[in-house]
């Protein structure tokens, strides 16, 4: 028996398990006719306010939305979102800095997803870790608030590059914080050329129409 080291090629995706669960989820969502959007951003960029407004508006329009929210320690976000009367599940991740597909699978157990039109997944506020994990969503939104600075996309290119739609939030505060809109938009496009962008305020509803029209186009009735 030789003791010479031998190199064997393997070529396996490290996150294959997560990707498999995500692929199963995606298939289930598609069969059930539910459009799934996940949200990533840094803490405090307005994910929960945006989601609360989105759920409320969708309910008003007669849609059936639901949300799964990830939070490190508290159930505050879920309580806020529950005010919209939409079904909401909380995933408390403890010290885990991101959501994984299996957590979504567990969170939606007991829900008849065929009764839903939209499912929103609010990831943990973090611009680094969530980028590696597919959650079975149709699109990933990355949120950037005007108070964060225009260069966020350049500092966190990986997460912006993994997203499908950029949402600039708190646009009602743009003038107050001297937000350079052109610079922000150009930075987003530099990191992820061609990514569609929305600008809105969850507080004043400015720009929410375009977002609602986008969602309606995904669930034509």
């Amino acid at each position, binding site marked *: 028996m030789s003791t010479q080291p031998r*190199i*064997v090629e*393997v070529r*396996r995706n490290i996150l294959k398990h997560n990707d498999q669960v995500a692929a199963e989820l995606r298939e289930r969502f598609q069969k059930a006719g539910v459009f799934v959007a996940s949200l990533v951003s840094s803490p405090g960029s307005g994910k929960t306010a945006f989601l609360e407004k989105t759920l409320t508006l969708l309910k008003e329009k007669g849609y059936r939305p639901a949300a799964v929210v990830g939070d490190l320690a508290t159930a505050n976000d879920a309580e806020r979102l529950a005010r919209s009367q939409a079904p909401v599940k909380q995933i408390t991740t403890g010290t885990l800095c991101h959501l994984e597909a299996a957590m979504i699978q567990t969170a939606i157990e007991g829900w008849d997803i065929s009764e839903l039109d939209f499912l929103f997944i609010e990831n943990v506020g973090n611009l*680094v870790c969530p980028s590696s994990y597919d959650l079975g969503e149709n699109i990933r939104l990355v949120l950037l608030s005007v108070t964060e600075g225009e260069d966020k996309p350049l500092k966190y*290119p990986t997460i912006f590059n993994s997203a499908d739609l950029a949402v600039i939030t708190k646009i009602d505060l743009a003038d107050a914080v001297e937000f350079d809109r052109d610079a922000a938009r150009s930075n987003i496009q*530099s990191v992820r*050329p061609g990514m569609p962008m929305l600008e809105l305020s969850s507080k004043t509803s400015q720009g929410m129409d375009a977002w609602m029209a986008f969602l309606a186009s995904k669930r034509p009735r």
Partner: protein
Amino acid sequence: MHELSICLSILDVAGEEVDRRGNPQVEAIYLRLGPLSGVVKEALLSAFELAREATPFRSTRLVIEEVPIVVYCSKCDAERPVRSMQDFSCAECDTPASKLIHGRELELAALELIE
């Protein structure tokens, strides 16, 4: 910091491969890592030191090969590198790039075994 969970996944995948091969000793795990994987090489290497303790891999090395970003450039009609992560355009002709070919890799490439 999710590098520790990534390391545990690396050891899971490596463990399955080693099982299938009759549990030889593993000298090294070769990993291919893209800059858009969301995983930082240095953090992964330190997390690996911790993750491998109390496992059959406690003397195994982690060798990371960094995979450069490659996009398909529609103007060049060819695969090209980009200027940078911040300037995601073709390094040859500056056309903004939207089709990623390489750069998200987080892949167990090979195992170095003593049999």
